[in-house]
């Protein structure tokens, strides 16, 4: 199957000489949920900026649906229309006075007719649940709302791939859950999503595939299901495995839970545990979890 987007052997150095990427490979399956893990400075943001053509690899290529992306005006225009990039800090990417105006920035730059722009803006604001704030001044919004405006601004361009840099940072738990639901709804519509994070628990809970970066390299790309049974694979790339793995392993050792499947989060593990005391339905619940 042809990946939706693929970065092959990409290297990039910043103007000050520091390495951003070193021979980095990454491929995303169409319609998949992807988490990009890595410490600060591992190159996550640099990688993401390559996917959108904001940075051009010195060596290596970027392929969109199998076709090599040409980094000229037309090529970048087409790429950026398909790949929506949401940055971490909302205050650094919102620059209009009103919500609606900011969301319309991308579609207007695409040169769409006004009615189409209005439609898209309204739809994007509905998608993020801000339809009642269309005329609100951006600086009166809360941090979480600003993050959603940023997302709407990218959704209004109707990208096929959505790349989000640390979307959960600074959000409290209920807001994180809202965002997670929103991302799931987008995936259900066929959008491919890549999310960077430094929270392995979130990655294991949400993603289909996990990609781990360190020192500018993509060190690991694996389906979550495979990673959940291999703590050593996480440690080999300098990551702490999700807490649920050690907990599950211990409960298996004590004979409380079945060895497979490994639940993806503490919450799900708890659900399995709770189901356990109902002897009649125990088996089926464990398999559903």
């Amino acid at each position, binding site marked *: 199957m042809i990946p939706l987007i693929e970065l092959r052997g990409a290297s990039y150095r910043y103007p000050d000489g520091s390495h951003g990427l070193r021979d980095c490979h990454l491929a995303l399956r169409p319609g998949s949920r992807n988490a990009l893990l890595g410490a600060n400075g591992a190159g996550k943001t640099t990688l993401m900026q390559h996917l959108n053509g904001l940075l051009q690899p010195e060596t290596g290529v970027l392929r969109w649906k199998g076709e090599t992306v040409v980094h000229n005006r037309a090529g970048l225009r087409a790429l950026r229309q398909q790949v929506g990039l949401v940055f971490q800090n909302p205050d650094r990417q919102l620059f*209009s*006075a*009103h919500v609606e105006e900011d969301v319309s920035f991308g579609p207007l730059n695409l040169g769409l007719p006004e009615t189409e722009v209005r439609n898209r803006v309204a739809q994007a604001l509905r998608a993020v649940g801000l339809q009642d704030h269309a005329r609100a*001044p951006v*600086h009166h919004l809360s941090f979480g709302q600003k993050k959603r405006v940023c997302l709407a601004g990218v959704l209004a361009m109707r990208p096929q791939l959505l790349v989000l840099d640390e979307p959960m940072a600074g959000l409290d738990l209920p807001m994180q859950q809202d965002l997670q639901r929103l991302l799931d709804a987008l995936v259900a519509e066929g959008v491919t999503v890549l999310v960077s994070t430094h929270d392995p628990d979130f990655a294991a809970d949400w993603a289909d595939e996990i990609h781990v970066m360190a020192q500018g390299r993509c060190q690991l790309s694996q389906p979550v299901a495979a990673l959940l049974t291999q703590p050593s694979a996480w440690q080999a790339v300098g990551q702490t495995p999700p807490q649920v793995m050690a907990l599950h392993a211990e409960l298996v050792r004590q004979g409380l839970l079945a060895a497979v499947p490994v639940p993806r989060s503490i919450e799900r593990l708890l659900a399995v545990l709770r189901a356990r005391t109902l002897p009649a339905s125990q088996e089926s619940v464990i398999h559903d979890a």
Partner: protein
Amino acid sequence: MHIMEGFLPFKHALAWTVASAPFLAWGLASAGRRLRAHPDHRMLLGVSAAFAFLLSALKLPSVTGSCSHPTGVGLGALLFGPAAMVPVGFVVLLFQALLLAHGGLTTLGANVFSMAIVGPFVAYGVFRLACLLGLGRSPAVFLAACLGDLATYVTTSLQLALAFPDPVGGVLLSFEKFAGIFALTQLPLAITEGLLTVLVVNAMAQF
């Protein structure tokens, strides 16, 4: 457009420094008076100076190869008044010399005179005049920024002409030559500058 380090003869460099000094002292005194009433204006002035420096180092999209231009100064004069712009402009020009090698220390006085004194005062004066004449906000801002920019460049040309008069045509011909050469870059720059400032001021009014 700044005069580079060492380009002016000693007497001229000194004379422009002496000419700028009282304005700087006046600007500082005026800022100091404001600080006594509002101590937090110290930070405001500092952040504004940083912002003006940032804008002065921008490259405008329409003009290729232009190294620097006084956007911040025109906008600043409208926001803070010309008096505050003298120390702010001084800091901007000093930083340009020390961080970007644009302009210089010996020519700092001359550059301050054209860019931190003449430019803001003309911009501010034009704006007030345009308002008195009942022009709308946008035309007034456009004229202020555009003419402020042009006044700066005319002053610089004059400074160069005074320093290097033409052996045949004297200061006047020399001025024509310098003004003519730099007009190539400065005229489109001034117009872009004016447009940009109008867009900025209109966008700011929405916040």
